[in-house]
C-alpha cells in the first residue's frame, strides 16, 4: 500500500514536471517567433501589390502568386523575413523579378491584393533602386563597371549614366549611375547584378527610397516655366541717398556692388 502511494507520488511528480515542461515549451515557441530576426535585405512585394497598409487587409497568404511565378522569385515569408509570416515577397539580390509581360502573379491573385489594373509591367512599382554605396560603387571610383546600367530592363530610362569630371585623376570622366524614380519598377536586376560582395545599389520600398518635398514647396524655375515669366518683379532700382551722382565707375563692379566693400 505504502509502495503504491510512493508510486502515485512519483507519477504525480512526473506528470507535473511534464506539464510544466510543455507549458514552458509553448511559451518558448511563441517567443521564438519575434526573436528570429535575420532580415538583412529589404523584402519587396510582388508587382501590383496595393499599399502595404491595405495589403494586409487583402492578402490571404494563399501562395497562388508564388506558384505562378515562373522564375521562383516570389516566396512566402517565414518569421524573420521582415514582412508578416505567409505574405509574398522577394529579395532582388536573391532572385529578381523578371518582369513577365503577362504578369502571371497578378493574374493568379484571387483577392485583389495584387491589383489587376496593372497590365503593363513597366508601370510596376515594387520599389526603387537606390545607389547607396557611394564609396564602393566602381563607377563612383572612376572605373567603368556599368553593370547595373546594362542589366536594367529599362536601360537609359530607369538608370542612366551621368558624366562628371574625375577630380582625382584630373583628366578622366566618372560615369555615375543615376536612378530615375518615375521609371524604376524595383525589379531588383541591378541589385542582383552588382559585382560587389555587398551590392552598392539596392532596391528599397518607395517610401524609404524617395524623399518627399513639403506640400507647400514650389520650385521657382518650374513655376516660371508654367507661368511663362518670372513670378516676382525685377529688382527695384532705388537711388542711394547722397550718392545720386554715383561713384566713379572704376570703383563699382558690373553688377552694381562696390569693389572695396567688406561686410
Amino acid at each position: 500500500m505504502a509502495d503504491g502511494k510512493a508510486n502515485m507520488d512519483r507519477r504525480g511528480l512526473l506528470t507535473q514536471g511534464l506539464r510544466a515542461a510543455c507549458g514552458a515549451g509553448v511559451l518558448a515557441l511563441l517567443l521564438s517567433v519575434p526573436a528570429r530576426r535575420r532580415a538583412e535585405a529589404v523584402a519587396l512585394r510582388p508587382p501590383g501589390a496595393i499599399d502595404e497598409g491595405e495589403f494586409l487587409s487583402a492578402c490571404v497568404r494563399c501562395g497562388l502568386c508564388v506558384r505562378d511565378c515562373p522564375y521562383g522569385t516570389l516566396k512566402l515569408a517565414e518569421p524573420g523575413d521582415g514582412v508578416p509570416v505567409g505574405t509574398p515577397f522577394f529579395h532582388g539580390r536573391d532572385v529578381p523579378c523578371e518582369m513577365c509581360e503577362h504578369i502571371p502573379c497578378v493574374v493568379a491573385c484571387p483577392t485583389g491584393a495584387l491589383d489587376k489594373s496593372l497590365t503593363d509591367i513597366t508601370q510596376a512599382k515594387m520599389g526603387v533602386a537606390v545607389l547607396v554605396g557611394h564609396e564602393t560603387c566602381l563607377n563612383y571610383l572612376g572605373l567603368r563597371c556599368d553593370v547595373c546600367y546594362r542589366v536594367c530592363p529599362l536601360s537609359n530610362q530607369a538608370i542612366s549614366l551621368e558624366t562628371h569630371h574625375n577630380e582625382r585623376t584630373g583628366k578622366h570622366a566618372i560615369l555615375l549611375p543615376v536612378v530615375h524614380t518615375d521609371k524604376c519598377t524595383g525589379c531588383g536586376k541591378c541589385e542582383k547584378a552588382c559585382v560587389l560582395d555587398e551590392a552598392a545599389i539596392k532596391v528599397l520600398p518607395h517610401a524609404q527610397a524617395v524623399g518627399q518635398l513639403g506640400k507647400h514647396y514650389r520650385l521657382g524655375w518650374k513655376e516660371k516655366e508654367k507661368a511663362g515669366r518670372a513670378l516676382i518683379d525685377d529688382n527695384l532700382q532705388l537711388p542711394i541717398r547722397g550718392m545720386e551722382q554715383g561713384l566713379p565707375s572704376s570703383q563699382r563692379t558690373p553688377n552694381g556692388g562696390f569693389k572695396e566693400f567688406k561686410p
Partner: protein
Amino acid sequence: MIPGASKAAQTGWLSAHKWLLARRAAQLTFLALFLSGPLMGVWIVKGTLASSLTLGVLPLTDPMMAMQALLAGHMLESTALVGAAIVLAFYVVVGGRVFCSWVCPVNLVSDFALWLRGRLGLKESLTLDRRLRFWLLAGVAVGSAVTGAIVWEFVNPVTMLHRGLVMGSVLGGGAALVAAAAVLLFDLGVAANGWCGHLCPVGAFYGLLGRVAILRVRADGRAACDNCMECFAVCPERQVIAPALRGEDKGIGPVIDAGACTNCGRCIDVCSKQVFRFGTRFHNRVPAATDDVLQGE
C-alpha cells in the same frame, strides 16, 4: 479498457476504426492533392487552404478569411468571393466542423497529442471554457475591423502548418513547425484537446455552420445504449453527445445537432450497440409512440 475494444472483439478491428481510417485517408488525400503539383508536377490543387484553385477552374477560399478581409475594409475580387461562397455552401451540407476533423492538418497534431495523453496516463488538464473560441472569433472579427488587417493570419496555426507542408518550408523549421509544436505541447501538457476543442476560432466559425448543417451524426439506436461510455471517451466534444443519446425522456430528438460536433464518426466506430450512424438533421423527433401520446392528450 481501450475504447472500441468490445466493438473490435465483436466485429473486428477494422470495423471499430472504419471512420477513423477514412478520416486519416481524407486528411492525407487533401494534402496529396496540394502536393502533387510541387512534388510531381501534376497540378491538381494550387495554393493553400486559405485560397486555392483546383484544376485551374474551381476557386476555393476560406470563408472566415474572406469575412476578415471584408471586415478589414477590402472588397475582395469575385474569385475569392465565389470561392468563399462555394466553401460555405459545401460545409453547410456536410457539417461545418467536417473541416476540423477531415481536412485541417492541425487535427493530426491534436489527435496525436490526445493519443499520447492516453498512453502517458496524463489526466490532469487546465479547465477551459469551450465558449472561449467564440470570444476569440468575436475578437478576430472586431480586431480585423479595427486594425484593417486580416488579424488571425498573424497567429493562425491552421494555415501556418498547411502552408509549411504545402510550400515545403516545414522542413526548414519555419512558422509551421513552431505552430505545430505549440499546439502539440499545449494539448499535451496544458489542456486536453485545448486548441481544437476550446480555443481555435476557425473551428468556432465552422461550428456556427454546423448548427444548420445537413449531414449529422444521429443516435437513432439510442434505445440499445448500455452506458458503456466509450463514445464519451473518444469524442473530442463530448458535451454534444448526451442530449441526443439520453434526451429521449425530455423529448429531445436523436440528432446530434450541436455545432461543435465535428462529424468525425469515432462514436460510430467504437459503439458496440450500433447506436450511432450518419444521417441528416431532418426527421429529428422522438419515436412516433411518444408523439401519439402527446397528440392524444
